Structure formats: C-alpha cells, structure tokens
C-alpha cells in the first residue's frame, strides 16, 4: 500500500524525447484494435443509450415502436408521471444527506483511528486494523437483523441516522486501513518539530497531519459518498416509510409495483442515473486518482 498522492496522473505520460513512434503512420492492425476498444465501450453504454432513446416516448409510441427506434416526437408523460407519483426530490435529498454525512463522519473517524494506529503505533496495531477491517468483510445480512432490532429499540428505524451510523462504520474500515498505512510512513521530523514548538497531539493532528493528508481525504470522501449512495440491502431494511427512501429504493419500489407503466419506469431509471453521472463528471479526476489508492503496492 502506498500513498494516493503519488499515483501518476491519469493521462499516460508523453515520451520525453521525440520518438519516431508518433510520426510513424498508424498501422491497419492498430486501427483494428482501436475499433475493438470503441466497440467494447459502446456495448457498455448501450443499455443507457437505450434508456435515453425510450424515456421520451409516449406510452402509445412506446407500445407501437421498437426499442431501437427514435421516438415519434418528444413526449414527457413518463417523466411527468414519475415525478408526480414518486416523491423524487425527497428521495434525492435523503440520498444526498445520508451520503454526505457518511462521507464526512467516516473520514473523521478514519483519521482519528489511523492517528492512533499509524502515528501513535499503539500496541497490537496490526490486530486493531484487522478488527476495523471486519466491518468490510462481514456480509450485510449478518448485520441487518440485530441492527434492525437495535434501531427499533432506540427509535431510529426509518430515520436516516440508522443508515448513516451503520455506513460510517463500514466505510471507515477502508479509510482506517488506508490512512494507517499512509501515516505509518509519515516523516517523524515534522511531528517532532511541532512538538518542540509546543503543539499538543490534538493540535499537530489538526494543523499538521490533516492539511498534509487533504488530497487523500478528499478522495476518500468522494468514494464514501458514492459507495453509500449506491447501497441497497441495509437501507432497504432500515428505511420503511415513504418519506425516508433513498433514490435506489424509490426505483426498486417502482419496479416492484405491477401497475407501473413501462415508460414511467424507464423515465424514472433515467432520472435516477442523472445525479450519479453529474457527480461522476465533476469528480472524475479525483476518482480515477483514488481508485488506484488501495491497489498500488
């Protein structure tokens, strides 16, 4: 495990010296391989293109045309029905609130844990990391029945905090693991200098370590946000009132209802994808930098 910070930028580095390589004409086989890569990418986005193609058809148009045909004319019935029958803004807000809270709190917990493990080098730290990592290994159905009862007893069911609390723990497992190994190699001179200047531990954590870690922490936050946003099983178990549902749950519920019109379902799916895509476009660079964080040896 190494730092997030030192993973090279996404674009392949350009060769330093001018090579004959670039000027050499591209061969037929290279064009073929490019075609393969593009066809593969098209196959991957194809289902989403299908959604786009069909979300703006009227129910009649949808019934009479093939799924690969363009809509006869732009029609917003599906989108309108979805918007009117489902409280989507509410679900969007629930998802944003839960994911943001988890991202912020889980990063904070990870920093505290890894400060004790990586900098404090407390006794038995390898085991402590393993204990925290259990949160990542345990299958969620192991958690859901006991936690359901626990949250029921304290009145947290259908309350976003039941999900927030649970995923703070699950996400901070990865954060603790990553940050502990990072802080294990943190230059001691910096901390000693801070100590000489009279900084307490808390102070050097806050004003020395956290600022240096900031790029890594922001990557972690983006990750925790997306992972929590996509969660399904535990939110399904804990959030039961119409007001408390998250975006994936609303869509799943709509899918389960028999009388749901197909165009409404397609429109709903498309609308549910939009926030994710926006988020992806905004944080693309942070993300691709971050995915490598856990992987590079």
């Amino acid at each position, binding site marked *: 495990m190494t730092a997030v910070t030192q993973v090279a930028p996404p674009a392949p580095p350009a060769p330093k010296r001018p090579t004959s390589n670039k000027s050499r004409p591209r061969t037929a086989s290279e064009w073929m391989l490019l075609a393969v890569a593009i066809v593969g990418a098209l196959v991957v986005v194809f289902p989403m293109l299908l959604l786009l193609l069909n979300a703006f058809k009227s129910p009649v148009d949808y019934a009479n045309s093939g799924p690969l045909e363009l809509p006869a004319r732009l029609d917003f019935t599906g989108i309108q029905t979805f918007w009117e029958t489902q409280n989507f803004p509410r679900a969007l807000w629930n998802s944003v609130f839960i994911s943001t809270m988890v991202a912020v709190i889980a990063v904070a917990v990870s920093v505290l*844990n890894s400060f*004790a493990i990586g900098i404090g080098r407390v006794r038995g730290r390898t085991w402590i990391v393993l204990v925290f990592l259990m*949160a990542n290994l345990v299958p969620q159905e*192991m*958690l859901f029945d006991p936690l359901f009862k626990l949250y029921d007893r304290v009145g947290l069911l259908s309350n976003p905090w039941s999900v927030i609390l649970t995923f703070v723990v699950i996400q901070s497992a990865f954060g603790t693991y990553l940050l502990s190994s990072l802080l294990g190699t943190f230059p001691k001179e910096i901390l000693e200098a801070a100590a000489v200047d009279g900084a307490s531990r808390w102070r050097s954590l806050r004003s020395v370590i956290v600022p240096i870690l900031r790029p890594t922490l922001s990557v972690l936050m983006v990750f925790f946000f997306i992972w929590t946003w996509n969660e399904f*099983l535990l939110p399904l178990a804990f959030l039961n009132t119409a007001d408390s549902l998250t975006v994936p749950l609303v*869509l799943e519920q709509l899918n389960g209802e028999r009388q749901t019109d197909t165009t409404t379902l397609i429109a709903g799916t498309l609308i549910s994808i939009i926030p994710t895509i926006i*988020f992806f476009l905004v944080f693309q660079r942070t993300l691709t930098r971050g995915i490598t964080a856990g*992987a*590079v040896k």
Partner: protein
Amino acid sequence: MTITPQLKRPKKAQDPARIPQRDRSKLGYWLYLIPGGILVSLVIFYPIVRNMRLSFFHWRGGRAEESFAGFDNWIALFSDQEFLQSFKNIVLVIIAMVVVPTLLGLIIAALLFDVVGRRFGGKLSSFLRATYYLPQILPIAVAGVMFSWILKPNSDGVLNQFLTLITGSTVEINWLGGQYSTAMASVMVLMIWIQIGYPVVIFMAALQRVDPELYEAAELDGANWYERFRAITLPMIRPEVFVVALTTTIAALKVFAPVFILTNGGPSKSTYVPSFYAYQEFIRGTDKGYAATIASAITILVVVVAIIFIRVQNRAERKDA
C-alpha cells in the same frame, strides 16, 4: 514505492526533540480510538456475536422462546439443498465477478494503454476508460431495474424485440422467470457489465508505473502487441491483479442486490446465492436461528478466504524481495 524515504529514527533517549513526547505516555493515543471503537463494536461486533450465538438456537422471532439447538442448525446446513444450490451459484458468480472481468480488464487496459493511449492520444484513452468505468458508479438497484426492463419476458422486452427483428419470427423468451439457465446467465451478464470498469481502471493506473521506453524498445525489437502484453504488461501489474482478485472475490461471496432485483431468487429458488438465502430466511423463514447460521457460515467463509489471500500475497512478496 513510498511517499517519502523512510527516515532513520534516532533512539529515543538520544534525541532531545522527543522529550516532550516521552512525558506523555502512549496511553494518550488510545483516546483517539474511542469513537471508532465504540461504533465498530456496536454496529459490527454486537451483530456478529448475537448471530453466532443465535446459530445454536431455534427461534421463531418476536416474543417466542429460544430453544437450545446445539449443532442442529449447522448440521442441517450441509444437507440443505437450497444452501448447496446457492453455493453452486457462487461459483458462477465468481466467474462473472472475478474471472471474466479480470481477464477482459487485462486485455482492455493493455489495449487502451499500449495501443490507444500511445498511438491515438491520451485523451481518447482516458475517455474510453471513463466509459468502461461508468457502470461501476451506477447504483446496483438502478442497473438492475434497467436490465430487468431490457429482459422483460413478453414481446414488450427489448431483447425479445431485438431478437424478433433479427430472426424474423416472434421471440418471447422468459429470460428471468423461465428457466434456470437463462435466469442465471442474465444475472451473470449484469455482474460482468457492472464489474468490468474496476479492473480496467486499476490495471491502467498500474501501467503508468511502466517506463514507456520499455514498450518502445520492445517495439523496435519487433515485439508485437501480444508479445509486449506477455513480457511487459502482465509481469508489471501482478500485484494489482492480486488486489482485484481479492476484493472482487470477497464481493462475490457477499453478493446480494443483482439477484434480489433481477430474479428474486427464482425461478423456483434456483438462482439463490447465500446472502439472498440468509436474507429470505430472516424475513420469511420460521427459524431465525437457522437464518443466523447461514449468515454466520458466509461470514466465516469470507474471513477465511481473506486470510488465505493475504497469506499468499505476503509469501509472494517475500519471494520477490
């Protein structure tokens, strides 16, 4: 590769700078573990202990009495057809979530990096990589609903209409509810579709470490694309292949949502996976003790697999060193 070269730490006694640190004992650091410790014991270890204990009892749930069962539940597990079937399916899930995406990911990453990136420009390869990664960030529930729309059973289904168009005769295959083979295949296709971007991105990042001149030198020596892949790409990114295999295998053992949304375990329970089975037993079963046994068995399996993986990895590293 580390961020900073490991600095030599002077012995404590010789170093005046450490004196303020020494006055305060290391005990102070334990305070920082309190919030995380409380949370993890409450949210993770309380359920583990509770379910492990419950696996030795029969319990109808609610206010019913628990009755001690000894190893009854655990013995029953190994002759339970549904449980065994769900484990057979896990093999297929591992093929769909680990084997196929890793192999395809290797090929695609090498293609994008070695051919597209070097010969057609980094912008294009970054764009294609983002495209492959897109399904990874979609909520699985949303991806599942999208696939179940495409796979609708009647002539309304996209795939059926598509096949009708190609073959010329009406196709009305009940992909998800008809028979085991098509239902399981559909679940597997969804999993491959979701997973493919993960190895692509990780392997491509790993390839950034490789000196581009290495590729050029190999090229000048007349090595073709496949030879470069075998001789340079594969050995360089072995650690990443390992990490991808570990993380996706664990995810495969715990898989739940694709089955829940696409097939709901059907037709006639044939596409059950262990997580889904445990969930069903907790919700609808008559013995929560048995449900806890299934969940405990998966937990033990996941932990064992993780430990084996990490052991093997450590050994491989020592050999390299």
